[in-house]
C-alpha cells in the first residue's frame, strides 16, 4: 500500500507578504472601515439585533416538537411508540390508552419529551407513521429556569401551532 502524497503550493511566501507590514495595514483597513461605518450609521451594523430581531429559519429546521391534530382537534398520534423506539437519546416517554373516537384503537394518555435529553435529530419525525409528531414549530431556543419545566407533556405539545404553512413544510424550504 502506497500513501498518496499531494504537494500543496505554500502561499504567503512573496517578499511583500514576508514583510508583514503591508498585510497588517491591509487588515487594519478592513477593521477601521467597519468601525467608521458603524460609528457613522448604527443601523448599518453587520450583526443581527438578536433577540429583538429573530432570524428567519427554514421550514426544515428541527425545532421544538409538537403533536399535530386532525381537523376536529383530536390528536393524530396513535401511541405506536415508533418515535420512542427510534429515539437515540431515550427522551420520549409515552403511556398509551384505549381510544373510542373511531379513528384508532389506541391513543396517548401521556406523551412526555425531555427537552434536555433531546438531541434534535428528527428521528422521531421520520419514524412517525401518522405524521403526528413534527419539529416545525420554529422554536429554536429552548430555555428555562427549571429542569422540570423542560419535561413537556401532551397538552403543551398539542397546543403549540406549526411555525410554517403546510405547503412550505412539505416543500421542505426553498
Amino acid at each position, binding site marked *: 500500500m502506497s500513501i498518496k502524497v499531494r504537494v500543496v503550493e505554500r502561499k504567503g511566501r512573496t517578499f511583500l507578504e514576508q514583510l508583514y507590514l503591508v498585510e497588517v495595514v491591509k487588515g487594519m483597513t478592513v477593521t477601521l472601515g467597519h468601525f467608521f461605518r458603524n460609528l457613522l450609521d448604527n443601523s448599518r451594523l453587520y450583526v443581527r439585533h438578536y433577540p429583538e430581531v429573530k432570524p428567519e429559519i427554514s421550514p426544515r429546521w428541527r425545532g421544538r416538537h409538537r403533536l399535530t391534530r386532525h381537523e376536529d382537534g383530536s390528536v393524530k398520534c396513535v401511541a*405506536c411508540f*415508533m418515535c420512542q423506539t427510534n429515539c437515540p437519546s431515550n427522551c420520549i416517554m409515552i403511556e398509551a390508552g384505549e381510544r373510542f373516537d373511531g379513528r384508532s*384503537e389506541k391513543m396517548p394518555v401521556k406523551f412526555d419529551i425531555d427537552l434536555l435529553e433531546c438531541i434534535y435529530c428528527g428521528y422521531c419525525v421520520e419514524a412517525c407513521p401518522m405524521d403526528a409528531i413534527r419539529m416545525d414549530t420554529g422554536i429554536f431556543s429552548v430555555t428555562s429556569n427549571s429542569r422540570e419545566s423542560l419535561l413537556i407533556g401532551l397538552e403543551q405539545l398539542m397546543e403549540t401551532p406549526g411555525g410554517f404553512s403546510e405547503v412550505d413544510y412539505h416543500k421542505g424550504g426553498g
Partner: protein
Amino acid sequence: MAEMVKLFVNGQEVEVESGKNLIDALKVVGIEIPHFCYHPALGADGNCRMCLVGIEDGRPPIVPACKTPVQAGMKVLLDAEHIKKIQHDVLEFELINHPIDCPVCDQAGECSLQDYYMKYSLDDSRMRVDQVAKAKRMDFGCGVVHDQERCVLCARCVRFTRQITKTGELGIVNRTDAARVTIFPGRPLNNRYALNIVDLCPVGAMTSQDFRFRQRVWFLKKDASICHGCSRGCNIYIDHHREKYKDDIIYRFRPRTNLLVNGYFICDAGRLSYKEENENRQVTSLIEGRQAPFDETIAAIRQKLDQARKPLILISPDCSLEQMWAVRRVSTLYGASLSGFSDAYVKAGDGDDFLINDDKAANRRGLELLGIKTDRKSFIEALQKTDLFVNFNNDLHFSGVDEEIDALLGTVQSIAVCSHQRDVFKTASIILPIASYSEYGGTIINQDYVLQAFAKAVVKNEAGKDMLEVTRLLGGAVIDARHAWPGIRKSVACLADVDPAAIPAEGIKLQTGEDANVGA
C-alpha cells in the same frame, strides 16, 4: 433418548429425533418451518397450509410438515422455488383482509404473521377492493379481547378450549371471508386458563385486557423464572422493564415450556400474580413505627434476638431452599425454635386436575426435606412459650384471620422480615423489608419433588435485601446461595448429588425414599 434418524433438508444431512413431526424435529436442530395453526400442545390441524414442504421423490410431493412424521432418508425441500411460492401465496392470502394495523397492535414484535411477512413475502397488496370489515375489540370474557379482522383462523384458540380446558366456549362460524372466531351468545369464556389463548394466538387477534396497550413488547426484558403462586411451580417468563426515571416493574408473566412441570400453559391466577410483585411492597425499615436506616434495624433485631429467652422463628413456605437453610442455621445460632407453619396457604378444593393446586405455597417440599416442622400443634406450643416472635415473610392471614393464633401473637413481641405490607406484619414492632421472588435467585421444590432453579430478574431502584443477606447480617454463616449447598447436601439425602449451578432448565425429579425425608 429417543431413536435418531438421518434425513436431508435442502440436500444437507441432519440427524433428528424420530417419532416427531417435521416442524418439531427440525426446530431442535435450528431449522424453522413457518406455521400458524400447529402447536405442540394442540396437535396438527393442517388448516393454515403455511407449513407445506416438498418431499423429493415423495408421493405426494408436497405435504404439510405438521402432519408428516420424520422418516430416515427423507429428502425435505424448504427453499425450492415452488415451496417459496406456496409460502408467499399463503401469506398473501392471509393478508387480504388483514387490517395491517401493526402500529397499534399489541402483538407487533412477537407476531408470526409479521415475522413471516418480513421473511417470506415483503410484497405490496394487489387487492383493489374494500377489505371485509369485521368486529374489533370484542370482550370474550376472562380478560380476553378479540379482534376478528386480525384473525388468520388457525383455530388454535378454538382447539384450546375444546382439547385443553374442555369448556368449548369458542367456535368458528360462517365460511370463506365471513368466517370468524366467536363465542356463543351470552356464553363468554369461563375457565381458569383463558389467558393462554392470548399466548397461543399467532397474530394479534387475541389480546389481554390486562396487558393491552401497556407496553410495546420489544422494550420488555424477558427473564426465565418460576411462578410462586402455588406448589406446582409453573415455569414462567417475567417480562419487565424500567421506564426512564421510573422503577423496574413487571408487565406480565408468560408461560415457559417445561414438560416435566406445567407443559405449555399457566393458570390465569398465576399469570396475574405479577401484580403482587409490583404493588403493596414493604420498602422502608421501621422500628416501633419510626422509619429507621436498614443497618440500625438489623442491629435492633440482633439485640432483641440476643436478649430473648426463647425466640420463635416462623418461615414462609415460599422461601427458596437456600433461604430456608440459612434461616434454619440462624435459628440454631440463637437457640430459637423454628416453624414453617403455613396451613393458611392451603385452600382446600381450589385445585383442579390440570395445573392449579390447593396448596399455594411454592416450596413446602423444601420445608419438609429440611426437616422444618409445619404442624399447627407444635407451632402453637412454641408460640405459647416464646417471648420473641420473628416472622420471615410468612403470611399467616393468607386465607383470612386465624383468631387463636392472633390472640397468642397479641401477647408476644414480634419482628417481621417481609417483602409485602400485609395485615399480619402490622403488629410487629420491627419491620425489615426484603426482596420478593422476582428479585432474588434460588431453588425450590414443587409438590412432585421437582427441584427447579430460578434466577434474579427484576432489579428495583431501592432493591430489598435477599433474605439470605439478612440472615448473614444477623450472624448466620451462610454468605450466599452457593454457600448454603454444602450444608443442604449433607443434611438432605436426596439432594446429596445436586449441583445447584447445573440444574437443567426443566428441573430435576428428586428420588425420595422414606429415610430421605429425615433431616440431619
